[in-house]
């Protein structure tokens, strides 16, 4: 009975959060998301309230998190990879149009400042404006400003605050309708070229004029100053006949363009291939070296003849206890050519460019990564070694096997069975080891002869980061396409490797 009550309370809590979330979403007109929440909530209730369905009861929470944090992210990245999302293509076409018109709306130079009161009538929102000379005018978006009779006006100092036939909006109403008021443009006269009044703070208005006009029917943007017409040619931007492009565009689906980019730009493609090779080399060498170093230490420190094992073990695990960010930063200081500890003290004032020479920089990143990575390998090897029964070694010795034969024929294969999956995941981790590269070299030194900012120690993941967040223009589309490439590579390598691990298990 108690369990049932607890279950009901927990379920009610979940539902309460869902109802609250849905009400917030509905208030923001986010019907799709609200619908998704509704469906998921109903599903959860059905699973936990109906008898049976035992597997579902265990799996549902995990599945929901899987969907939110993995499936959604992957699907969304995939979607972005097929768009031109990036600098200059940031939002929808409607947003771009209003941004372009807004950017090209400028205050008429030397024009007077009007004191205004926001008013309303059946004709809609209007501005009651008092010019610096004391003339009082009123108008709406459709009805240009016209003077009102003096007798109808209530003045407050130099500013008209009310006029007959119109309701003055109080602060409360103004705050409620801010976007409407900020967007209100009251023309000065029937001729649009005279400009219009607009207020940004509901108490003062300036005369503005707009030089760009969007024609909805023709879907064109016209620069009324120069007469140039810009059209939407399906590239997510407005382009003129002679190839001029307006800076602010919008997001569109571009198909496989991002995936084809490396092929259409051979130099970038070439750089990408060398980055790919280095990424493989970096991941494999890092995992290999740290595994064998870890294994060596594990064997040495597992030997019963070894003294003060505990102290050595603690020392070996130390780098693992360091946050990798910090470790990399410390190494950055140590490897400075002129001031670094390595050159200055260890090598007696040598001038070795650890981080600025293309090949040495590669070696340096691997050294640092092995330093950071071997304690983990040491730990898992130590655990695996200790779980191998002593009898096997004894039996082998009785049969006359040498120490090396025992190690290579018995211990190592057994060790691989338990450590291989960890080596694969370690490979996947190092394949995407962003921290260490970014902290140590930022991918540099730079490759000569390539347009894009690609460096000799860049991994694919740092290249993705540079494409998405640094340099000439942010290009989330291309970065997403490269991410998918990484995903495919890591997934393929892992699948093959896991298959082979299975074979290993069967052997034993």
């Amino acid at each position, binding site marked *: 009975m108690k369990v049932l009550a607890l279950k009901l309370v927990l379920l009610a809590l979940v539902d309460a959060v869902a109802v609250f979330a849905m009400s917030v979403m509905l208030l923001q007109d986010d019907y799709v998301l609200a619908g998704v929440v509704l469906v998921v909530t109903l599903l959860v209730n059905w699973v936990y*309230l109906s008898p049976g369905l035992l597997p579902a009861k265990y799996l549902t929470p995990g599945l929901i998190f899987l969907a939110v944090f993995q499936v959604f992210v992957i699907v969304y990245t995939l979607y972005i990879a097929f768009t031109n999302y990036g600098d200059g293509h940031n939002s929808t076409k409607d947003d*771009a149009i209003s941004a372009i018109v807004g950017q090209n709306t400028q205050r008429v130079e030397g024009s007077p400042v009007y004191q205004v009161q926001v008013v309303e009538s059946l004709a809609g929102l209007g501005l009651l404006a008092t010019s610096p000379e004391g003339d009082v005018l009123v108008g709406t978006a459709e009805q240009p400003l016209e003077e009102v009779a003096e007798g109808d006006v209530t003045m407050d100092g130099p500013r008209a605050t009310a006029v007959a036939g119109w309701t003055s909006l109080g602060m*409360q109403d103004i705050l409620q309708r801010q976007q409407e008021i900020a967007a209100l443009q009251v023309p000065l006269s029937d001729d649009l070229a005279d400009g219009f009044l607009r207020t*940004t703070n509901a108490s003062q208005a300036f005369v503005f004029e707009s030089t760009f006009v969007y024609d909805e029917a023709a879907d064109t943007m016209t620069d009324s100053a120069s007469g140039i017409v810009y059209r939407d040619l399906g590239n997510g931007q407005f382009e003129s006949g002679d190839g001029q492009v307006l800076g602010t565009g919008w997001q569109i689906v571009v198909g496989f363009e991002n995936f084809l980019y490396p092929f259409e730009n051979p130099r970038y493609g070439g750089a990408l291939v060398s980055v790919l090779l280095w990424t493989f080399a970096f991941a494999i060498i890092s995992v290999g070296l740290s595994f064998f170093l870890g294994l060596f230490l594990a064997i040495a420190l597992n030997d019963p003849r070894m003294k003060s094992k505990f102290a050595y073990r603690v020392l070996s695990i130390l780098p693992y206890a360091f946050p990798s960010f910090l470790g990399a930063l410390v190494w950055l200081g140590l490897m400075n050519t002129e001031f670094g500890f390595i050159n200055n003290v260890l090598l007696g004032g040598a001038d070795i460019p650890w981080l600025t020479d293309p090949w040495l920089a590669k070696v340096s990143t691997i050294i640092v990564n092995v330093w950071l990575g071997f304690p983990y390998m040491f730990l898992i090897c130590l655990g695996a070694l200790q779980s191998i029964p002593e009898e096997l070694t004894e039996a082998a010795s009785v049969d006359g096997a040498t120490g090396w034969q025992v190690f290579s024929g018995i211990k190592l294969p057994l060790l691989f069975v338990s450590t291989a999956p960890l080596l694969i995941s370690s490979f996947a981790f190092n394949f995407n080891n962003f921290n260490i590269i970014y902290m140590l070299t930022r991918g540099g030194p730079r490759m000569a002869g390539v347009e894009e900012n690609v460096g000799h120690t860049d991994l694919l993941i740092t290249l993705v980061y540079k494409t998405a967040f640094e*340099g000439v223009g942010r290009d989330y589309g291309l970065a997403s396409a490269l991410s998918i490439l990484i995903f495919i590579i890591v997934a393929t390598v892992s699948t093959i490797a896991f298959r082979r691990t299975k074979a290993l298990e069967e052997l034993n």
Partner: protein
Amino acid sequence: MKHSSLVKAAGVGALALTLAACSGGGTPAPEGTESAAPQGGGELIVWMDENRASALEGVVATFEEETGTTVEVIIKDFNTIRDDLTTQAPSGDGPDVVVGAHDWIGKLVQNGVIQQVELGDLASDFEEVAVSAMTYDGSVYGVPVSIENIALVRNTALAPEAPATWDDLVATGQAAVASGQAEHPLLVGIDPNNADPYHLYPLQASFGGPVFGINEDGSYNPDDLQLGNEGNVQFAQALAQWGAEGIINLNISQDIAKEQFASGTSPYTITGPWNLADFQEAGIEYAIDPIPSAGGQPATPFVGVQGFFISQYANNPIVASQFLTEYIAGEEAQTAIFESGQRAPALTAAFEAAQSNEDVAGFGAVGAAGVPMPNIPEMDALWTDWGTTEAQIIGGQAADPAAAWTAMAKKIQGTLGG
């Protein structure tokens, strides 16, 4: 003990509704209750970095009290604001107001995420360089709050007199090194792979042209890349020489430069006001001087201006505009921000009041001659190539500095043109 699912469902539903109702209890009390605060009820979401948020606590409280607006300040890391605004604003759930640097404006406008701010007559209350920095394509996009630039900071124990010329500076620096008083003639913090075009720019400016041509109204012309002009090529040659002589050293990072100057190992460093606190802490007696010209023309630094922008997607544009033009543009806010960060205020009244502080006056005098860092989006195409080429020239990897520089300028021209 068999409960029907239906009964359970009803129980859960009832309980859920009660709980959901409770969670909604936080909505504000109904309007119309008499209170001393003016009628308001607007909301404003502001993104600020921690420093400015704590400096502006008083101003925000005054604003809330006087207008009845609720301000929600969200603390963000300064450098992430630009990207976060760009990606989050179009969703409609972003901020109304953000703090930022003027050189972001071009990109933010290109992405359509900030809107113009009409300063009106307020414009003349600000330092000219601050308003021109906030101007892009003829319109003002932000209310400036602080101005920063780099200058020459001199250790008065090692170099009692301000250097009259660049040769003077080099001679004094080298003499100090030769006599064993110092270890470095000059400290300029740069990156071994990417140098630092910003910190080296005053020296470059002394040889010649700006990086982009300047229009009649003082704005930068993105179609006129001047990076490869004659003066800048001469700078490349000088850079190679300084690199070889050890005056500019690739291995001195920003951190090392700060630390070395603070420990008194060099008579000069080129840096900004942000490092002064460390120098004071270390007990270094220093003075702030203009950077002497190396190439004959004034060695003008890039001036950076920080200010507040309004999101194009602001839900509360009127309140946002009030907050900016009436409060952020006020002396109280400008002075508070100045006091928290030691960057000179942008409002002329506050700027002049701050001149009693010698450090501010020193940097301000140098900045007054400076030019705003270009805020056009094209500027982003320059930094990386510009920096790596400088590094190659300083490090001596570029056998022919002039050729390397010209090639770099040509490549950037290609990127911009294509």
